[in-house]
């Protein structure tokens, strides 16, 4: 991390997003925010509160409820030299804009052989554990993970939120920036002052260990870390890797860790079938099979449409730190 200033401030993930957006708007007048309720309401999580007073309605654009064109209009703005930051209010609402993301934004550079480009960010809150039910809880990353031309980021810590959001805003290509709702106010941390970026695609080894590599992203990074500390108290040594970016993804960090620990557990909230863990497992099987002492394990969301509103349904869908610790013990014992 290229820290410009030694000074830092403690903030949560909401505050980190807000502070980063504010600095981006201050430093570059091509930057604007376009989305539902981002103006007077200041975003449903208050991320853009009061921005409209300072930057005005041409840079803090309240849109009609029309997700396809929120992204599509941002694509047109980006093609004409602006740096739009589009917001989809909840990731569950991103489906109407699927073509604009996959068919348009991700292909602009390629189909014009670079004559036109699409430097834009699509921010959206995702994930469960907040009693969000079927349409305020989903993980969408696997749906977009398949798409060349896109980059996808899913930070877990406030300092990473800032560094990666700055990198996403600076990036010359479209970036899908996923913010886990449960971490918004739950997770606090020190955020360095001043402008800095974290390269897209760089994972972070949060905790070193010798017996097992645990790879995760988003909310589950925090719970995996908690589980790893439980195991540490039991005398085991678990390495925890926060991917931070999931396209591109840090092959070096994963392989380096797996070749050392010889065991791999991938944990994510999104469902298992066709998920990010499947790609990681295939890559490790292709590149490091003979380094492994145990089968690759995945602890993921179940293969159901989404988590239900009722607490037992949500709890059944989510993996708890205790379940994560159990999976870690099993794999180490294999």
């Amino acid at each position: 991390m290229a820290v410009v200033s030694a000074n830092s401030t403690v903030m949560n993930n909401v505050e980190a997003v807000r502070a980063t957006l504010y600095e981006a708007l201050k430093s570059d007048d091509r930057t604007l925010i376009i989305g539902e309720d981002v103006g007077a309401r200041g975003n449903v999580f208050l991320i853009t509160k009061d921005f409209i007073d300072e930057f005005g309605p041409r840079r803090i654009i309240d849109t009609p409820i029309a997700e396809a064109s929120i992204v599509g209009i941002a694509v047109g703005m980006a093609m004409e030299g602006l740096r739009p930051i589009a917001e989809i209010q909840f990731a569950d609402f991103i489906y109407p804009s699927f073509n604009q993301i996959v068919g348009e934004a991700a292909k602009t550079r390629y189909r014009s052989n670079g004559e036109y480009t699409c430097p834009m960010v699509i921010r959206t809150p995702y994930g469960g554990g907040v009693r969000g039910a079927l349409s305020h809880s989903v993980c969408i990353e696997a749906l977009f993970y398949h798409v060349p031309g896109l980059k996808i980021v899913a930070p877990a810590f406030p300092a990473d939120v800032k560094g990666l959001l700055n990198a996403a805003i600076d990036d010359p290509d479209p970036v899908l920036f996923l913010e886990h709702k449960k971490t918004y106010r739950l997770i606090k941390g020190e955020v360095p002052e001043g402008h800095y970026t974290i390269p897209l695609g760089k994972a972070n080894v949060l905790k070193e260990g010798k017996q097992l590599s645990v790879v995760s992203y988003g909310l589950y990074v925090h719970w995996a870390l908690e589980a790893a500390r439980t195991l540490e108290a039991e005398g085991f040594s678990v390495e925890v890797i926060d991917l931070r970016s999931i396209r591109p993804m840090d092959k070096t960090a994963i392989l380096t860790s797996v070749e050392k620990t010889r065991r791999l557990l991938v944990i994510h909230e999104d469902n298992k079938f066709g998920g990010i863990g499947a790609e990681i497992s295939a890559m490790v099987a292709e590149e490091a099979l003979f380094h492994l002492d145990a089968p690759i394990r995945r602890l993921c969301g179940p293969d159901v449409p989404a988590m239900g509103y009722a607490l037992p349904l949500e709890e059944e869908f989510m993996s708890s730190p205790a379940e994560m610790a159990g999976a870690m013990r099993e794999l180490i014992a294999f």
Partner: protein
Amino acid sequence: MVTVKHGEAKAESPFERRGLSDEQLVAMFRTMVMQRTLENRGFQLNRQGKIPFASASEGHEAVQAGAAMAFARGKDVLVPYYRDLGLALGIGLTPYEVLLSLFARAADHSAGRQFPHHYASRSLGFHTISSVIAAQLPHAVGAAFALMHGREDGRAVLTTFGDGATSEGEWHESLNFAAVHALPIVFLCENNEWAISTPLAKQMGQPDVYKRAAGYGMPGAVVDGMDPIACYGGVADALARARSGGGPTLLEAKCYRFLSHTTDDDDRTYRSREEVEARRKEDPVPCFERLLIEHGVLTAEGAEALKRSVLEEANDATDRAEAMAYPLAADLYARVYAQRYDPWLDERDGMNDG
């Protein structure tokens, strides 16, 4: 409101040239003849087995030549659709560039990636598009917002689409947003009555697309899409309003698609020959030629010479483009992102997204 007149009635009406000089009128006619020629060339090359595909815009010559004449080159932005060969030519894309696209050569703007007639040219302000219907409309609206954002007065966006696009959700979203923000944009519907095989009656309960403008709170107008001067006038008025801060317009040009949708389509399966032949009486290319000759803008000999020169230019463009190289297989991997990229960031083998 402009009265819609079709075909033969035109020559008898007074010659309203909307301020266009003889040179501009002849230039429009030449664009129309070139569009017709290159259109046929695409079908010929396909039937000769030289290119896999071409699409058809025959019947759209008048609206496109008129719209192109109203477009301010170097200032306005064009966000077209894939049936806009004449519009592309009219704003400055060369026949050679068109043929490079048809032949999918490396020197094509998309480097041989895009389907034929999906042109783009940054230097002409001519956006890249996909084949997904109406997906370009939000881009056009975003571009218009960018012009307004930069306070670049006197610039506007012209976006085009067929009648089929008006059924898409993004069509609605785009007009609505443009009206809310009074954006400098003209929505030009080239209504050719057919969405591949689906006629207007199965597409919309109200066959006059321009009437929907009232629902968005913007001006709507209709022009005879077979009359290039009327089309010029309609687009010029709407662009002038947009450029001067007067907001968006929904303009409908009623034309007709004379050929099948593409070289892969067979319109005999869904519409009668009688219908198509009846509409041929309105064919804008011979109608406009007669008008120009009747009013002394062009002589019969001049018209023949113009057609010969168009054919020569088209032949030359065909030969030159065909002689150009295909992209290399390695070009498949270029320009996915700004930097060299692999989804797996691997510093150990030197592959890095930079």
